[in-house]
């Protein structure tokens, strides 16, 4: 067994995704004497390796690996892990990594640690669970630990490099008769406002309680330069279109002010708004994780606050 750390590079439509750099940074801290190996799958995609801060890149080229599908990726990664027996394989706790990690754990009977935020040189993992309210620490299991990683513990720049790493090509296992096939990639519908352009976001979460209450943030938006956006439950209820979604599955935003109303601050939400200049959180639960990322907070009822705020905005801007 070696002390190599494998990092499964995630990319979509010709772009390396940020989580890949986060994982490379984590691997570097953890690897000590071992090598950080970026594992890159694609088709005519060698160029994606250029920005990766890794000691080497294992590259597998195949038409079935052009864009991600769970089955082709799992089969290919399993054959690589079987050949090299790394100390750990880091994958994203994402729509790519999570499809692969479970399959690999069951296929190869290897232990799996999920939602990992940091790995330390002494071999410990720290995972973040329960919507960001609890951290769990333990020893990374042996012989080869499969790990799915969430962002937040490392900066993306730490996993980037100006020097392109050395590339070793690897032949994939047979990838025919696949049961999972990509048909097409569909871009999000355009037409609505682009929330990532607004300097003032009025974000509503499940605390808004029902669709009718959306009048309140809408009125504040009308009285200010603000734009209304939302957390996932609000969008899943169909109260706002997906174009307004902030977070892991939605948009990443970085406004001057992010007013979070009735949002708990789950990691999947914070992933999309944690870098806002100033976050003001309104949440009746004083223990809500959103207060760990907010600059200002208040525990008063958002339904009570919003009309007062709108009133003040209206008074300040004579119509």
């Amino acid at each position, binding site marked *: 067994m070696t002390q190599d750390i494998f990092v499964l590079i995630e990319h979509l439509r010709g772009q390396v995704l940020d989580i890949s750099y986060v994982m490379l940074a984590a691997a570097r801290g953890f690897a000590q004497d071992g090598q950080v190996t970026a594992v890159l799958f694609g088709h005519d995609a060698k160029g994606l390796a250029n920005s990766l801060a890794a000691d080497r890149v294992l590259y597998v080229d195949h038409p079935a690996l052009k864009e991600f599908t769970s089955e082709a990726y799992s089969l290919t990664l399993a054959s690589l892990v079987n050949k090299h027996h790394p100390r750990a394989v880091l994958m994203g706790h994402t729509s790519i990594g999570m499809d692969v990690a479970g399959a690999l754990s069951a296929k190869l009977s290897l232990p799996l640690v999920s939602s990992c935020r940091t790995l330390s040189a002494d071999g410990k993992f720290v995972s*973040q669970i329960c919507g960001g309210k609890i*951290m769990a620490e333990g020893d990374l299991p042996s012989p080869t630990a499969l790990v799915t990683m969430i962002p937040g513990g490392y900066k993306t720049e730490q996993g980037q490099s100006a020097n392109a790493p050395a590339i070793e090509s690897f032949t994939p296992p047979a990838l025919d008769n696949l049961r999972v096939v*990509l048909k097409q990639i569909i871009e999000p519908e355009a037409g609505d406002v682009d929330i990532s352009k607004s300097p003032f976001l009025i974000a509503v979460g499940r605390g808004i309680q029902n669709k009718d209450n959306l009048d309140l943030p809408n009125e504040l938006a009308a009285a200010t330069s603000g734009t209304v956006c939302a957390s996932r439950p609000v969008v899943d209820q*169909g109260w706002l279109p997906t174009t307004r979604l902030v977070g892991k599955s939605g948009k990443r935003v970085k406004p*001057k002010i992010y007013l979070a109303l009735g949002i708990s601050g789950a990691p999947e939400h914070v992933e999309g708004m944690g870098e806002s200049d100033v976050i003001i959180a309104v949440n009746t639960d004083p223990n809500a994780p959103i207060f760990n990322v907010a600059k200002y907070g208040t525990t008063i009822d958002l339904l009570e606050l919003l009309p007062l705020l709108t009133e003040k905005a209206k008074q300040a801007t004579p119509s």
Partner: protein
Amino acid sequence: MKIAVPIKFVPDLVEELTIDSNGAALDTSWLRFIINEFDDHAIEQAILLKERAGAEVTVICAEGDGVDDILFATAAKGADSLVKLTGDFGGGINSHAAARALADLFKESKPDLILTGVQGHNDLDGSVGALLAEYLGMPFVGYVAGVALSDGKAVIRKEYPGGIIAEMEIKLPAVLGIQAAEQPPRYVAYSKINQIMKTAKIEDRALANLDFNGGATVSRMFKPKAASQATMIQGSPDEVAERVFGLLKEHGVM
């Protein structure tokens, strides 16, 4: 078409979570458990598929407080069979153990499609869906928001960041991890649930010899330390509004 939906109860995050005296697990004596919200979406998706083209829907859950009520509620929504897994789950059950137990069950009942929730917020050893699929030798796709069935295949919509969707075709039998149903989960009236309780049966199924291999051991649990704790604004609602409004002006968005 047989569709199976295994569901999971998770701690309600609205309640305060406390860590037990050993410092390595949640103190369950105070926890309130609710159905994983993504399982509500998986159930909704199963019922939608049944309404469209006919299917026999089975919902499976490990025993616990409030489980019967949820199972009867899914029957009121349209589920055909209800299964309760019984056994000694006092110390909790990790994803690997759950996936192996469910795989044993499904090797007998042979569903064409298994819909799990995309993830539970408290698991530490991966999500059951992908493990289960591999134990059954079936393909898996997670982060699914939309499923259409046609001759032995499912055409699914898989979510990527930024609202990008991948349309994929997956051969049945298969396991899908549901992120969102095509419409918000429906509500059922209590009267309808009460009605169905008189006729619907919950079938018990005892689980023996859980195999927990594949998970990690947690040596310490703790609450996250804030990088920068928020400055709390105190006062009457009007004073708070005044201060928040002041911040908007200060930062040039008013």
